[in-house]
């Protein structure tokens, strides 16, 4: 009797353990949490000179689910079609913020500024010139951003988020075939130098959660 009880407990634990191994998500907010967790390999942060810069690789699976929710699409078929389109590009979310652990509590738009002229230059750079300071390097090619858009926070946040998208040119190897991404930011705004944010795409893809459409 005791032995049967032990066996039942053991199997229950095994089932719980196994079910926790296979990651499965069903909503965008669950995917958001997964993407933002630096343990999952999609987020790299660097702090220099009181400025915290994070780069999050947003995989095509995430972008597709986001589009599904945005347009109210349903079903796996539509998702697969979007995924197929999105796989040709690589999207990243870049976040500039003050490193409060280093005593910087300013809004990142004003950090280290001396006058209004410098503020205007910074605003122009983050809105329109950031594409010239970013490169995505893979094993074979270097790619320049085709899109960079700064999200306006209207003073509600000290951080600034910038969406950046890369895509391959005709003569370049398709981005979906790359195994590693090296996101290089050559700063001209915050005196933080050249920063590399590396992502192992192969490992990321292995660890991505399954999407449950039911």
């Amino acid at each position: 009797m005791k032995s049967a009880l032990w066996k039942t407990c053991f199997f229950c634990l095994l089932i719980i353990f196994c079910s926790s191994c296979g990651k499965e998500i069903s909503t965008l907010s669950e995917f958001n949490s997964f993407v933002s967790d630096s343990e999952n390999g999609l987020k790299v942060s660097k702090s220099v000179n009181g400025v915290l810069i994070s780069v999050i690789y947003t995989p095509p699976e995430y972008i597709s689910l986001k589009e599904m929710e945005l347009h109210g699409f349903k079903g796996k078929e539509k998702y697969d079609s979007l995924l197929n389109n999105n796989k040709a590009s690589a999207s990243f979310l870049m976040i500039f913020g003050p490193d409060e652990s280093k005593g910087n509590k300013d809004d990142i738009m004003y950090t280290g500024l001396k006058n209004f002229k410098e503020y205007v230059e910074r605003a122009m750079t983050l809105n329109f010139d950031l594409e010239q300071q970013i490169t995505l390097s893979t094993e074979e090619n270097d790619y320049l951003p085709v899109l960079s858009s700064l999200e306006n926070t209207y003073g509600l946040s000290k951080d600034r988020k910038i969406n950046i998208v890369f895509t391959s040119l005709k003569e370049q190897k398709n981005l979906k075939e790359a195994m590693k991404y090296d996101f290089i930011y050559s700063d001209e705004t915050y005196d933080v130098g050249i920063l590399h944010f590396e992502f192992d795409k192969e490992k990321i893809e292995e660890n991505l959660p399954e999407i449950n459409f039911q």
Partner: protein
Amino acid sequence: MKNKLFILLNGILVISVAFCIYKTMSIPDVRYVKSADLIYSYEGMKDAQKKQEKVMNEVQSNLDTLQLDFQKAVNNYNQDFPKLSKDERIEREKLLSLQQNNLQQYSKNAEDKIKTKDEQITQGVLNQVNSFVEEYAKKKGYDIVLGTTTSGNILFAREQMDITDEVLKALNENYKTEANTVEE
């Protein structure tokens, strides 16, 4: 009497040991790095120098093109000189003078631009190194990390206190940090 003396001596011994431990613990852990070695061997600095070289080459290439154009214009003027009227000469000389001024202005602007970029790039690298050394020292429990310079702010320090190589290794590793990926 003997007992009292024994207790007194024991007390003195305990206080002495405690004082020694306190003194040992309160000595700041000082280390030093050779600043120039650290900065110029840092991969971030090498990349920054390459970038700066690229900017300089681009500017120089533009400058060469403008100089070549100006030289051609001068040669053409010299060739045409015998055939030109006085008014035509004055007009061509004016144009040449304007072209020369533009060339000089471009050269000066380019020089300023390169200088500003150079300062900006160097400052970025120095900020990276300073931020990293601060974190590294905290992690390793060092109280003070000094930076030696050629002007000699440290005249002597034991080699064991030199942490240039270990900081450089960690700094270069940090320069190309890969995101954590959960191994399953």
